[in-house]
């Protein structure tokens, strides 16, 4: 289904900046493991347009998650520029970055990461507590998000009372409830059985196509990657390939 990869010069990418929602420029990242330095990203350049649905694929350990974490502002690069919607997030201090995430990023995790002691409704409401919305307005937003993800009937269940697929629906509701600028998803189907995985991918697809959400997904599941509009292939910390999926939208 996929087209042959079309090589692009990173320098040329910068010319798209006008349309780009996310601009990544010469991004470097390494971790310290004891005394050893593990280099993960070595000069990544790419840009992502608004309402795009992007997948990062590549072998395990290639740096996909690291790149996603940097874009989502939960980790900091050693070097390079990372501009999201006109804001260079590498320059934000810790508390500004927290506020930026609350406003601009929706998170979907492989293991859902719902708070066990809160109901589905309360989990989805969490990010709204960081906004000035009133209780009544929050309720409206939470209900709408749960409806979109098709899990409203389980609003007052605790995560432990829900299946994996249902928990991921709650988590997706939590990710979209604040209407963030970008939604990041790290292996969103990694812990799901085949049927649930298909449903979740359909849901993400729907969010992108019908509601225009910008989604950035990390996956090693080819089925998942095929659902994205654009695929970036990472290998040993560099962008090896990129291609657009030939799908009927």
């Amino acid at each position, binding site marked *: 289904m996929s087209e042959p990869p079309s090589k692009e010069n990173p320098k040329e990418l910068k010319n798209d900046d006008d349309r780009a929602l996310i601009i990544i420029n010469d991004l470097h990242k390494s971790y310290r493991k004891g005394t050893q330095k593990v280099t993960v990203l070595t000069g990544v350049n790419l840009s992502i347009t608004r309402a795009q649905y992007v997948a990062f694929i590549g072998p395990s350990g290639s740096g996909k998650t690291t790149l996603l974490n940097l874009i989502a502002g939960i980790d900091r690069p050693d070097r390079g520029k990372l501009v999201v919607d006109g804001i260079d997030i590498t320059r934000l201090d810790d508390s500004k970055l*927290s506020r930026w995430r609350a406003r601009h990023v929706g998170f979907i995790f492989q*293991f859902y990461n719902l708070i066990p*002691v*809160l109901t589905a409704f309360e989990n989805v409401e969490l990010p709204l507590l*960081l906004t000035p919305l009133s209780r009544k307005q929050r309720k409206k937003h939470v209900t709408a998000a749960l409806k979109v993800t098709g899990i409203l009937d389980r609003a007052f269940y605790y995560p432990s009372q829900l299946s994996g697929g249902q928990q991921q629906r709650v988590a997706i509701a939590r990710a979209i409830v604040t209407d963030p600028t970008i939604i990041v998803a790290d292996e969103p189907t990694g812990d799901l059985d085949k049927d649930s995985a298909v449903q979740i991918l359909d849901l993400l697809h729907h969010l992108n196509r019908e509601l225009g959400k910008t989604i950035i997904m990390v996956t090693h599941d080819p089925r998942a990657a095929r659902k994205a509009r654009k695929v970036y292939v990472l290998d040993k910390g560099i962008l090896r390939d990129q291609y657009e999926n030939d799908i009927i939208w």
Partner: protein
Amino acid sequence: MKIPYQYTVRNLWNRKLTTALTVSGMALVVFVFSAVLMLAYGLKKTLVNTGSPDNVLVLRRSSTSEVMSTIDRYQASVIATQPEIALDSDGLPLLAKELLVLITLNKRGTTKVANVTLRGVDDNSWELRPGVRLVVGRKFSKGANEIVVGKRIAERFEGCALGESIKFGKRRWLVVGIMDAGNTEFSSEVWGDVDQFMQAFRRPVYSGILFRLKKRSLFPGVKHRLENDPRLTVVAKTEIEYYKEQSELMERFIKILGMVLTSIFSLGAVIGAMITMYSNVANRIVEIGTLRALGFGRTSVLTAFLLEALLLGLAGGIIGLASSSFLQNITVSTTNWKSFSEVAFRFALTPRIALYAISFAAIMGIAGGALPSLRAARLSIVEALHTWE
């Protein structure tokens, strides 16, 4: 910008056993802490209530208690002429010359003995101490070998019930009445005719002189005159002041002992809370990472965990305080170290003690939660989420 309190409360509730154990530790410490304060306060209250603000007690200079004081008949008559002394209905000074003697009596149902205060009193003594009421029987008659005993003595010592008799001063004394002076030291005394006691014990001198002032404000004047009169070797104190001094040593001892005990116990409780909170943090690392990713700041995380520790402390505080409040039903007796006589008193709870106990519990909670909460707040998001592998 706060993590909802339900998060904190339900986490505690979900880990019932750990929470219960930690809270019990705190409760035990708070129980001991408030019991000590209640004991110290109960004792003080008993001794201070014993005095009345208009009464002045005159003792021999340098004697710290009535038992050790002696005032001879000549000095007593000089004291009685002071113009500040209130007059009774017959126009005579409202003044009592009293004698205090310690004797030992057998405790009921045991072979133990304890010191009991005998107070030789005269007619005015009853009027000077309106808090002392005769509850059964009658007052002793002048010139007779009769006594009236305090309620607590009647209950606890052999031969002290109404109609019974005890032996001291080589004579046998009949109990003709029982008096109740509430929570005061008089409830633990035995009263008889001062002249009879002086004969029985062959004591030619009084222990102290008690009189009522015409007005409270006259005290400094009369004190100055008595203490500077060359014929006298006395000190004058208000009765309240005297009993307060009596209680101080004991109160201090109880408090110091209590604080030492509490400090040792509280160290244990704080360490217990710390262990619990460290494990609460460790069990919820991914949750903390998630909350931080969603945009909750380090301060919010710190606050949520501190609140959790605070709740542990407060729960312990409330339970400990509630348990210690039952102690108020218990009467304790001990030897008053200044007068060496037996006093009975109760644990007394006050709003101030309750406030101290709850604050102490809160501080223990916060102290135990501080380091674990800081650890939670300091976690790096990616490490907490453990996104690799």
